């Protein structure tokens, strides 16, 4: 018996509709199993052309080869980075495709001094690209060329000290030093790394404190006298001693840490995607190509150090605690 197959209009339309539905649904079905399938948006709460920009470009150039998609940065430096966090990242979909690239120390410290509109646990830092300790430095032509010079001068007058902004780990390092030695320093926020270096070099202030990466970049114009952490850069920071070694202190490292962050909700809703991010991040850190890219963008090789969720959570909490401790001094309250 033979069956004659005929295609009538109803069959044709039905088959067509099913085929169309399948065609439209297929990419979605495939997408559901592959992550990532499109570029990431990265919200950077600092200006273009700075250290964060350089580090981001170096790291993403390696990371993207593992993920197979690119990273699209957006720079939102407004209100000490809070515009980036609160307006842009805050409104972005928590789907693991929207990431932060921030500087943990100054940004978290800022939250401690001026509470943000979001919950401080709404964002999690999950991957540290690099970290550099803050340091104390003078201009090459400054009459104060040693720490002894500084203490001798501080006995005759209150010294003016440049800092990037009041809410900065370097400011806390200096205040802790002042506490330890009974010296009252006058912090002058010179609005950014450029201004802070210029202030020390031109004599606007007696000396300055800043993240050491920016100080190294200033070259011969400055001389580093003290590091608020371990001097792993050695000669690049004029072999300056650590504050704890020099003055018998127990100060935690005052760090500038550039790290990727993400919405906590994205981690909760898409744990598999988050696993891909953390795994490939760590693999990228171990890739020798990263060191090459980092050095090419004038990064100090010793500062390229990996840290994950747990370590960054500890640093975040440490900054919040320090902010609470020094809030009155840093806000003029």
């Amino acid at each position, binding site marked *: 018996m033979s069956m004659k197959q005929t295609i009538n209009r109803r069959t044709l339309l039905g088959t067509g509709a099913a085929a169309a539905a399948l065609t439209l649904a297929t990419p979605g079905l495939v997408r559901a199993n592959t992550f990532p399938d499109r570029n990431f948006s990265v919200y950077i709460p600092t200006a*273009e*052309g*700075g250290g964060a*920009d*350089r580090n981001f470009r170096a790291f993403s150039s390696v990371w993207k080869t593992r993920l197979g998609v690119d990273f699209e940065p*957006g*720079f*939102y*430096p*407004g*209100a*000490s980075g*809070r*515009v980036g966090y*609160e*307006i842009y990242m805050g409104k972005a979909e928590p789907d693991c495709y929207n990431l932060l690239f921030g500087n943990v120390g100054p940004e978290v410290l800022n939250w401690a*001094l*001026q509470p943000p509109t979001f919950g401080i646990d709404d964002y999690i830092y999950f991957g540290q690209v690099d970290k550099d300790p803050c340091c104390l430095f003078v201009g*090459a*032509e400054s009459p104060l060329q040693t720490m002894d010079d500084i203490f001798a001068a501080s006995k005759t007058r*209150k010294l*003016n000290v440049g800092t990037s*902004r*009041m*809410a900065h780990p370097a400011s806390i390092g200096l205040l802790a030093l002042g506490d330890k030695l009974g010296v009252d320093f*006058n912090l*002058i*926020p*010179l*609005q950014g790394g*450029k*201004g802070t*270096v*210029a202030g020390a*070099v*031109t*004599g*606007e*202030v007696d000396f300055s404190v800043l993240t050491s990466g920016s100080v190294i*970049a*200033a*070259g*011969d*114009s400055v001389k580093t006298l003290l590091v608020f952490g371990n001097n792993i850069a050695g000669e690049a920071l004029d072999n300056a001693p650590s504050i704890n070694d020099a003055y018998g202190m127990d100060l935690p490292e005052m760090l500038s840490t550039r790290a990727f962050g993400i919405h906590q909700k994205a981690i909760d809703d898409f744990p598999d995607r988050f696993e891909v991010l953390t795994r490939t991040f760590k693999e990228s850190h171990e890739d020798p190509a990263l060191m090459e890219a980092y050095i*090419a*963008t*004038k990064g100090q090789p010793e500062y390229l150090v990996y840290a994950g969720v747990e370590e960054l959570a500890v640093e975040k909490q440490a900054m919040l605690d320090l902010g609470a401790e020094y809030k009155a001094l*840093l*806000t*003029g309250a």
Partner: protein
Amino acid sequence: MDSSTASILVEVFFETIGYWYIIIPTILLGLIVGGIPGFSAANTIIILMPLTLALDLQSGLVFMISLYCAARMGAGIPAILVNIPGTAGAAATPLDGYPMAKQGKGQQALAISFVASCIGGLLTTIIALATMPILARVGFYMHSVEMIVVMLFGISLIASIAAQDMVKGLIAGFLGLMIGSIGTDVVYATPRGTFGILELYDGVPLIPALVGLFAVSEAFVIIEKRVIVTHEGEPKAPNWSDTFEGVNIALKRWVHIVWTSIIGLVIGVIPGAGASIASFVAYQQSRSFSETPELYGTGHPEGLIAPEAANNGVTSGTLVPLLVLGIPGGATAAIMLVVMQFHGVSFGPSLFEDQPKVGYGMFMAMAVSYVIMFLTILPLSRYMSRVTTIPTIYLAPMIIAFTLVGGFVPREYMFDMYLALGFGVLGYIARRTGYHVAAILIGVILGPLLEKYFLWSLKKSDGDIMVLFSSTLGNILWVAFAMSIILPIVLGMRRKRKLEVPAE
């Protein structure tokens, strides 16, 4: 200058000329991005950073410098023709440039602007090259106290503008200063007048305020007319004679170009100071010592020469602290620093010993760019000036669209577009009620800078107000400031008396 330096300079000069194929297209690019509100050499170099990094050191250097110079000059073109100062550095240009365009002298105004810019830029480049070690010291003496007086030179322009209608001028100036105080304070970052809006925490952004007050409000005004030029200044067919007349007017005032460009150079070498300060201070100085101060603001060539020569003087000035001290004098210089470091160049005192060709090469690229720019752009003025004859039904919407995009570009906040519109409405109301938008704008631009230096000075002295008179240079500047206020009044009275004598 020893013979080895001279031979390096000659060698670098010819090498730089050899890069004409980079310089000419870059000049055109710079003029375009400079002319678009919100765009600047700084953000163009950032956008094109992959290209800049891919070029060899010398080509990248020539590209960045040419772009920097051309963008500075380009910003003056829309400021003159359609009252759109695309950057804060061109904010003083339309004060006299745009009235000239409205009188049908757009072509002349452009020629004057180009000559003042090129000669001012070229001259200050040569001066900077010759006196670099001395100029680099300026920043060591010009601290916050001294900068307060410099700011007051610029802000005193409000009083000059107020002279035409004292009450309205001062109200506009104070309104500008109040708007300028919005944002967090520079010491403790306490928000003031922000109404909880995060986008205002960094203060009122300059470009939206600038394009809103000048350009958007102007678009609202010109839409009521057929073309920009007034009936008295009916548009003429493009001709070479207007260009030559503009060149002639500018060259006759060469002393003025030299004087105001040096003001720009000196302000440019101070880290953190910029073209906006320089152009307002130069305009104020030019007006104060002019024999015809009453003509300023009505389309007076000297009122156009001063800001244009000064802001191009700043261009070479910003290179000095970058090359000699390793401190970038402005945003563009900071980005240049990043790019050059990528190529292994270490700025600072050792640069001229280790890589003299790089150091001298940057100035030489600037000088060559100004020469080529002069030759290429001047002929274009006759065509550019036709913009003023475009019917306003097309021009006004284009201005609004361009400026709103320009307001958006620097920070990429939608909020800034609304802000530009808001400032446009404020500017329109101000114009229609006889308040001077320039007085508002001076307050918005210079007010926050004055406050910054004032708070730094007070913080450094633990609140002692006498710190304002604590430095020798500062006190000299105070005397100069007092003289620049008093002398024009005295000279004016004397002129008046002289005029009255023959009548008797």
